[in-house]
């Protein structure tokens, strides 16, 4: 066994960078969340106000509704990404001409910056410029207007997220499916299992670790989506797509309410860490220990 000192030396640069650019700002935000501070107000001093920010948060209907729509957004987006991603990964396992070419095309959305994705979808769905409202109107007589309809705006943000992130799910699941051994599937077929039984009792349990790691990363990123949605709908109409990231952004930048924004961030961070940690401890860590 090599000495552990070398291990710590190798890990040190990472820990130092994460400490100075991750932990210190976090501590600052934590400290700020117990203060009232609006640097552009009449009185720009930082005033300690105990847990007032957190108390206000519980009764803030804006925050609560934004929490609700965020959970709905994460649920629909991540679930659709998993289902579509799995089906596409299965389709990629078959042999057909031009497979590598199609895989490259399918990966293209992943390399785009979120702000660009947001502007593309804005160009596609804004009435009068966008092609989607015009086609829907001429084919079905359906009026899609993300500026006025809450449901339409919500749906378009979900579709945009699915378009952007399904390739990530597909790529991870292809890697997981390819590494599965053939024996259990052959045995199940010999035993007369049908496709549905094979999926539920063999495929799903065997790809569960990879599936969960993907859910984990997607959940985390979907909870903190800002730029795409801000670009596409700006959180509107009303507060229909005012997800937590957008809510914090609007609290901190236009309103310059730093203390309150910090408190919301701390709560969001806490919720994210707790849900991810539960997922990690229950489902992913045991596998790492075994390996």
């Amino acid at each position, binding site marked *: 066994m090599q000495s552990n000192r070398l291990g710590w030396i190798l890990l040190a640069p990472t820990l130092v960078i994460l400490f100075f650019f991750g932990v210190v700002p976090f501590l600052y935000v934590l400290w700020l969340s117990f203060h009232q501070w609006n640097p552009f107000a009449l009185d720009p001093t930082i005033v300690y106000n105990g847990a007032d920010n957190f108390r206000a948060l519980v009764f803030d209907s804006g925050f609560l509704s934004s929490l609700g729509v965020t959970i709905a957004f994460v649920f629909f987006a991540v679930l659709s990404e998993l289902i579509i991603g799995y089906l596409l990964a299965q389709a990629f396992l078959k042999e057909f001409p031009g497979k590598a070419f199609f895989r490259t095309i399918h990966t293209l959305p992943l390399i785009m910056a979120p702000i660009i994705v947001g502007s593309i979808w804005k160009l596609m769905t804004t009435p009068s410029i966008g092609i989607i409202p015009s086609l829907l109107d001429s084919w079905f007589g359906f009026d899609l207007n993300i500026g006025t309809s809450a449901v339409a705006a919500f749906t378009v943000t979900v579709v945009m997220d699915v378009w952007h992130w399904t390739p990530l799910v597909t790529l991870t699941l292809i890697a997981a499916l390819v590494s599965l051994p053939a024996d*259990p599937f052959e045995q199940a077929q010999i035993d007369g299992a049908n496709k549905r039984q094979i999926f539920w009792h063999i495929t799903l349990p065997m790809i569960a670790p990879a599936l969960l790691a993907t859910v984990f990363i997607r959940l985390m990123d979907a909870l903190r989506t800002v730029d795409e949605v801000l670009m596409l709908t700006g959180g509107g109409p009303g507060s229909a797509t005012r997800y937590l990231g957008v809510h914090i952004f609007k609290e901190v930048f236009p309103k310059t309410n730093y203390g309150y924004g910090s408190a919301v961030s701390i709560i969001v961070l806490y919720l994210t860490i707790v849900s991810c940690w539960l997922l990690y401890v229950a489902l992913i860590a045991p596998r790492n220990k075994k390996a």
Partner: protein
Amino acid sequence: MRRQRTWLYLLFWIVVSFLTLFPIYWLFVISVKPAVELFSTPEIILSSVYWKNYVDVIYDETLRGYMVNSLIISTGNAFLVTTLGFLACYALSRFNLGGKESIFFWTITNRMAPPAVFLLPLFLLLTQVYRIGDFTLLDTKIGMILVYCTFNLPFAIWTLRPTIDGIPKEPRRGGLRRRGERLDGDHRDRPAAGAAGPRRDADPHLGLRLERVSARRDADQLQRPHADDRPVRIRHDDRHRMGRDGGDLDVHPDPGADRLQPGSAPHRRRPDLRRRERMMR
């Protein structure tokens, strides 16, 4: 039937690719329209192409400066993140560091932070706290690269670690062995019978890798066909229902062995006979 399936998959992927590419195509359509035409009825097919937008972008000095900035920051960040991420993963994977699983989870919590609210603390830290004399990290490229590390380093560590965990360590004991083969008495890591998991004993080197084998295992290796293999005659040397090596032919391990004739396949031979033969030579 099989041909039809292939066409079906091809068709399916063409449709999926169309859906994937359409938003990008639409971005292009908008990019080659003059501003006046933007608000006319949208058409899928391009009727005329207006390249002036691209010319403007290419000849825009300021924009070129921004592009160089982006290139330097993203390349520098990718380089730094890959290097540090690899070192960190190596440490987490190969060393028995105290609390390393907690450190591993802690790294990813840095990525979960809502970015909007962390901009202000970072700004204040870069301008006022992290300074050496007159030098501050604000408005420097290295400052941006380091800030991006906070979000990208955890991602790199989480995606690299399974790969580094998968690279086999050197054998625990002296001697080379073929992949998947175990030394006598080494029962660790052996998967339970019927346990599901990737096949561990597959030999990617097809037996071509160097190996040093113990004398004990040599006996097994003798079963392989050998250059001076000759069929062993059993039936015709048999006088006392006993083989040449003194083994009882009635309990021969291979039930078909007593039908062996001179010139029959060498791999049906008994390995123990071969060994005796060689020792006598």
